[in-house]
């Protein structure tokens, strides 16, 4: 039992606990906070795998984005804590069935496919340099330029859409 394994187990427990906390807490703000914690633990997983760039991006992008979610919860929804659930009656059994199917499926896959040696080795320390980052950027801006640009246009459209939607609402209220 080496130190990596211990760290992994502790982190796994924390990440599962925070995920459960997010789903089960009655207060939307606490849910958002648990989600942030979960993202941070995932970032630490990336660090364990020797990918600091992805880890830092994870914290910046997701951790920062939850802030916006948080504000939405407080400002727009107003309902910080949920009333006792009045969900549709068939929703809960369906959810449980689907979850069970997912669990069975993944367990089956893990048991049937997981050989002790899949050829996955610990990442090389040499990957953990500025060069890999540079390589990634090169690939992104040469080989995958079109998808990259399309994604940026997609994000732009989403942003414009959000602005248009909120603007309309305001005009409607004033007139």
């Amino acid at each position: 039992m080496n130190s990596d394994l211990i760290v992994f187990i502790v982190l796994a427990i924390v990440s599962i606990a925070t995920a459960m906390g997010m789903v089960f807490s009655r207060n939307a703000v606490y849910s958002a906070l648990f989600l942030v914690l979960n993202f941070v633990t995932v970032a630490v997983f990336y660090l364990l795998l020797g990918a600091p760039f992805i880890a830092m991006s994870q914290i910046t992008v997701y951790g920062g984005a939850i802030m916006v979610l948080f504000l939405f919860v407080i400002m727009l929804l107003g309902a910080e804590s949920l009333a006792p659930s009045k969900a549709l009656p068939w929703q809960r059994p369906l959810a449980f069935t689907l979850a069970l199917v997912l669990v069975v499926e993944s367990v089956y896959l893990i048991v049937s496919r997981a050989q002790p040696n899949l050829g996955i080795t610990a990442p090389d320390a040499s990957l953990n340099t500025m060069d890999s980052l540079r390589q990634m950027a090169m690939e992104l801006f040469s080989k995958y330029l079109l998808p990259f640009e399309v994604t940026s246009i997609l994000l732009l459209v989403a942003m414009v859409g959000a602005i248009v939607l909120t603007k309309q609402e305001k005009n409607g209220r004033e007139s």
Partner: protein
Amino acid sequence: MDWTIWLEWVLKGFILCMILLTGFAYLTWYERRALARIQIRVGPNRAGPQGLLQPIADAVKLIFKEELTPARVYKVVFILAPVLTVVPSLVLAAVIPLGTSFHLFGREVNLFVADVNVGVLYIMSIASIAVYGIVLAGWSSNNKYAMLGGIRSSAQMISYELTLGLSFVTAIIMGNSMNLIDIVNGQRSLWFVVIQPVGALIFWIATLAEVNRAPFDMPDAEQELTAGFHAEYSGMKFALFFMAEYQKMIVICMIMATLFFGGYLGPGVDKFPLLGPVYLFAKVIVLLFLMIWVRATWPRIRYDRLMSFGWKILLPLALAVAFITATGILLADLYENQLFVWSIPVLSIISLLVAVAFIYRDLRRKSHGRF
């Protein structure tokens, strides 16, 4: 792994924390004295020579103050929020190189806690986490004013974070690395502030907004929001917010010195590595004085102007500056002509003047009442 390495890490982390905590205490003294001088007052001068024991007296006072927890606050978050504000301000300093290395007891001791390859990104990610403490403090206090302060601070920090990121980009391009040590070493011949003065200025303004310093201290605007997000806090919990603000000031001045003012570099630093922290300290003191000076002389900016300044002036300017820097460096590499490097400051200053002209025109139009 050798246990002495662990010991070294722990000791270095501890010493860095102690430096920051002591720095916080004496920064309050420094600020009060400097503000007093600017306003032709005397400032705290009773406790000890030149009032040097004032921070200790303040600490004792705060520790013995009664801590109130108002009824109907969200208690867990209320207690957690000051901690969440202080911790990022402390861990930010981990990647900042204080110097090169020196020999002690026959082993090489590096003068930085962590040599992170993506040091700049680390700073960005911690900065994005740092908002939470303030917003949670505002929300959990269950107080309208505190809530407003928290929301203001989050809007402000999200807006200025983009500008901050772009000015980081200019430094990354010039240093050709995300590692802060490489960035410092890239400034051996010339500080980056000479090549990119506008980038440094934008970074300065954006960081002022990030740490909620005057003239961007909207979250705790006393006249409008009583005390903003920390209205309900007292005693040591309030002291923690105070501590976080001043530590962030120190750390951000350290980052600024590292990115644009040559960090620990200075004459003779290669021969005597222990001079490195001294140079960095001197630069930080000067930069801190600039922050205090700004606070003493400029009134608080109005909230809508703060937003439109960030989005309509600062962000386009930062984009233009990043673009100019990248193009200049690229062309200089392609044609091996240093003239292109010198076109960077010229073009950036021209774009700064254009931005200033826009602000001037806008303000003049508004003051004439024609919207």
